[in-house]
């Protein structure tokens, strides 16, 4: 098992608190390249998209890696490197949870997002862009609906197959692309014809994703004018939703 494999495996199967052991068990490799390789793993395999709400702290860690390389050139062992990475997690968690304290509470470390949480966050990120039904989401991810329910459960430890992980990353990439192009959900145009397929869901459900064609299709759909809904027209005439009790500020 290479370091990269271990990190990827750890991402899908282990909570943050055990990353250190997953890295330690990778054995020997090319220590000189470790920081860069690990950074690549962090960036490309944990999150393939720009910083979104709630996941920025992963980037805070990877941003610190170059500095670590300069200040700790003596790192020669995977094990030592693993400890350094663990310390980085602690620093970031400390900055986020424990300003003013000299150490990070264990609870903060333990509550760091586990692999299942990361997976669930990715699915929420995809759905925020697409807004597909669970049936369509399962189709584009190439899994069954029952399997999708398991993926949605952040407390479930699932070791994703490489094919599934790659597919998830590709779909996440397309979701990010769509969010850059439009603020409406892609599902708004779910039944519109696109170049190369009857509709976007069909195109995204193909066994092998043609990313170039898909990007073209997304741009094609983004250029469409979103029709004004009846509710929007009514709102323009002054009709407003009456605020519910949920809108009251908390009495905490």
């Amino acid at each position: 098992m290479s370091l990269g494999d271990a990190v990827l495996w750890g991402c899908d199967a282990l909570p943050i608190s055990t990353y250190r052991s997953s890295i330690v068990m990778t054995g020997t490799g090319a220590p000189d390249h470790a920081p860069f390789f690990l950074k690549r793993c962090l960036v490309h395999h944990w999150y393939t998209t720009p910083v979104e709400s709630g996941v920025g702290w992963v980037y805070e860690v990877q941003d610190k890696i170059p500095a670590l390389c300069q200040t700790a050139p003596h790192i020669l062992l995977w094990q030592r490197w693993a400890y350094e990475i663990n310390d980085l997690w602690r620093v970031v968690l400390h900055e986020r949870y424990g300003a003013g304290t000299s150490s990070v509470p264990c609870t903060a470390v333990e509550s760091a997002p586990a692999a299942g949480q990361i997976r669930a966050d990715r699915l929420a990120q995809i759905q925020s862009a697409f807004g597909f039904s669970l049936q369509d989401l399962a189709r584009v991810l190439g899994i069954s609906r029952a399997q999708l329910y398991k993926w949605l459960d952040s407390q479930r430890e699932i070791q994703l197959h490489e094919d599934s992980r790659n597919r998830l990353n590709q779909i996440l990439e397309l979701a990010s692309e769509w969010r850059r192009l439009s603020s409406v959900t892609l599902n708004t145009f779910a039944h519109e014809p696109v170049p190369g397929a009857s509709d976007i869901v069909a195109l995204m459900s193909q066994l092998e994703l043609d990313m170039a064609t898909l990007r073209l299709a997304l741009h094609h759909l983004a250029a469409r004018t979103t029709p004004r809904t009846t509710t929007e027209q009514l709102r323009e005439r002054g009709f407003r939703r009456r605020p519910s009790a949920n809108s009251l500020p908390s009495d905490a």
Partner: protein
Amino acid sequence: MGQSLGQRLSALGWQCGSVIPESLYADIETLTRTGYRAPVRPEPADWLVVLTQSCDLVAGTLDQEPLIEILWCRSIPQPRAQFRDLRSTRRLDFRPNRQNHPEAVLSAHAAHDRYTVPRSTLELSQPRTDRALSTISVRRLQAWLALRYSRPAWPNEFVQRISSVHDQILNALETVARDDIAEVRIALAPFDMELDQSQAYHVLVYFVVDEAVWNSAPDSRQRIHAAFGSFVSALRRCTGIYVDQESSVLSGAQFTWQQMQITDPWNFANLTWRE
């Protein structure tokens, strides 16, 4: 022609959320001495609040609206998590007026602290001028009382089966309740039967998203989808609960009247069995 009772009360300044002055306490105590429960004897820090809707309060004649409803709100140091923000239909801890009385925190019980007295009692004085509920607090009190009668009554067995995931459900609900961006609606089959261990409750879950959020706020949508995943996953972990595959996150523009008929809103008050 003289003023009607309603006009006189209106002129004195009475409205929903007014606070009864200490000068009326003796009359109120006498009127609430029923023999089967303690009469109203508020402490100085307590608030005796008029609950009756303003339009009923100023009704023209006494026979139209003979009684008014008052709520004895007792002063407490801090709102308790399980009783604030409509989490319990039985008890409410709330801040009566954040702007004018930032330190004041009150608590009221829906059964023990509600009293009715003749509307004419209010004619004897003006409401307190140094204390009044804020508009937000009035709305909260009204929503709290309405919830007591409008929340769905679920089978005890169903409530018991989901009790192990209470905290996860609360967390997921809090995420979407904040900012009023979505409503959680569920259908239960059967909704009116206590099942034995060999049978499962079938649950259909909809997270209905405000159309404006659905069409223009990807970050909020992401929060809602994450909450939906947590909520449904928590339910699926419960023994004897089957989550219907049609469960989904929907735009309010897609959620139909038919779907509304078979579902009930789910809110914190549905989870008050742990009081």
